[in-house]
């Protein structure tokens, strides 16, 4: 399926990836060619076929409800871009 400029703008926003205006035509062309490759699978009749999410089709194992973690804030925040008083800082969140 060929994408147009507005599709690409919408996808970029949905994925929170900033895109420069001048890059949109090239991105649109490349995404369209990828979707063209993907669309070759549309011709196949898959009615009645169960989707497969995991190759081995096993079931979820459960973990005992036990606390195994201790406070590692200092180590984990040492690699954070911006923290203060133990909090991660981001531009103001407006609700």
């Amino acid at each position, binding site marked *: 399926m060929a994408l147009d400029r507005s599709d690409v703008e*919408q996808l970029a*926003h*949905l994925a*929170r990836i900033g895109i420069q205006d001048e890059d949109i035509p090239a991105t649109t062309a490349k995404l369209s060619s990828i979707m063209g490759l993907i669309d070759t699978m549309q011709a196949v009749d898959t009615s009645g076929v169960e989707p497969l*999410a*995991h190759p081995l089709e*096993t*079931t*979820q*194992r*459960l*973990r*005992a*409800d*036990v*606390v*195994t*973690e201790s*406070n*590692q*804030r200092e180590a*984990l*925040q040492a690699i954070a871009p*911006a923290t*203060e*008083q*133990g*909090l*991660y*800082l*981001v*531009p*103001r*969140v*407006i*609700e």
Partner: protein
Amino acid sequence: MQWEIVIGLEIHAQLTTASKIFSGSATTFGAEPNTQASLIDLGMPGTLPVLNAQAVKNAVKFGLAIDAEIGMTNVFARKNYFYPDLPKGYQISQMELPIVGKGHLDITLDDGTVKRVGVTRAHLEEDAGKSLHEDFHGMSGIDLNRAGTPLLEIVSEPDMRSAKEAVAYAKTIHSLVRYLGICDGNMAEGSLRCDCNVSVRPKGQAEFGTRCEIKNVNSFRFIEKAINTEVQRQIELIEDGGKVVQETRLYDPNKDETRSMRSKEEANDYRYFPDPDLLPVVIEPAFIEQVRGELPELPQQKRERFQSEFGLSAYDASVLAASREMADYFEQVQQTCGDAKLAANWVMGELSSLLNKSDIEIEQSPVSASQLGGMILRIKDNTISGKIAKMVFEAMAAGEGDADQIIEARGLKQVTDSGAIEAMLDEVLAANAEQVEQYRASDEAKRGKMFGFFVGQAMKASKGKANPQQVNQLLKQKLEG
């Protein structure tokens, strides 16, 4: 125009587990920011979720309690959106195959009628963190301690027709999850949060009106107020020729109004898909039977039993069964004293007002159930009168010991020796000779009123300890003899 209100609730109950739903971090409320946020909770690259067995069990308990279909194969899905309190950029939730399917719950309305409310589904998911908006140089601070706390999202059918019904439903859920021990129900700490879907339609119209969702209402009182305010807004809007827009709104209790939240330029597209890091959860029939066997007596069963076993009124039974703690307390009092009606009266009367006054829960009651039951025993064996009992109760509340100790220490034992009572009455009559004369001169109607005066004097003289029945009987003999 007559309007009909249509309400459905989505209740998020934090499940009481020691650790988070997908990690081994503690879930304790109120810890220092980010000290309970582990690699997994922070969404560190390369980390993976493993499901907490207790969260699954709690959800199954709830499903069984509302007679729901249990999702024997249920699947976790990712709900994708960007928000700073959502570390992975997706919330692990359940979409197509939830752990709890269709069920129902009976709610008792104020007038005593019972209404059945449908529960569409209940699914497991992880909670998000919190944004703190205090000013950090124009920035917000993010605390991820809460991220990954297990939630059960309980979605009702749009079955409620008034704010009061919505509150009754919310209270019933609140009571149920506490009975089941799966959620502490602490609304102030956010353990139980409610989103209200509200719409209005002209009475008689079959299709629903456009609904608005009021997010995160955190008390029963606010549920009622928020819904009423929102209903008013929608009706006024429509009557003024406007249209309700489907959106998320926030209730502001200070202004008693709802306002549009995060005016979104785009519709949310959460791109749900099965979480490839987790496999389908398969619930074995044997597990369901095991959980069913461990279910406690539920509020509705308890109410019915209190009526049939103890002969309590429907009202008393529903008040006493409202919380598991209250019901347990009542039953212990009843067992100690063997008198359900007296036990009910005392628990709902003096005890409840004491708890209200001190603003404490029944678990923290200064008077234990066995103390209260012991005191009622002394009423029943005529050691004390009901009036003296109130004094004893207050003394117990003040920590002066058991009823027997207090009665002994304060000399409150009721006087039943008729010789002593007669002697005391003679003194009272002698001291009030004039009134005795008047009494004897009066007709039957007047005598009734005046008799009360002598009883009062006699009880005062005995400091309330004389047996009231004996006082009555002997006084009558003496005045009329």
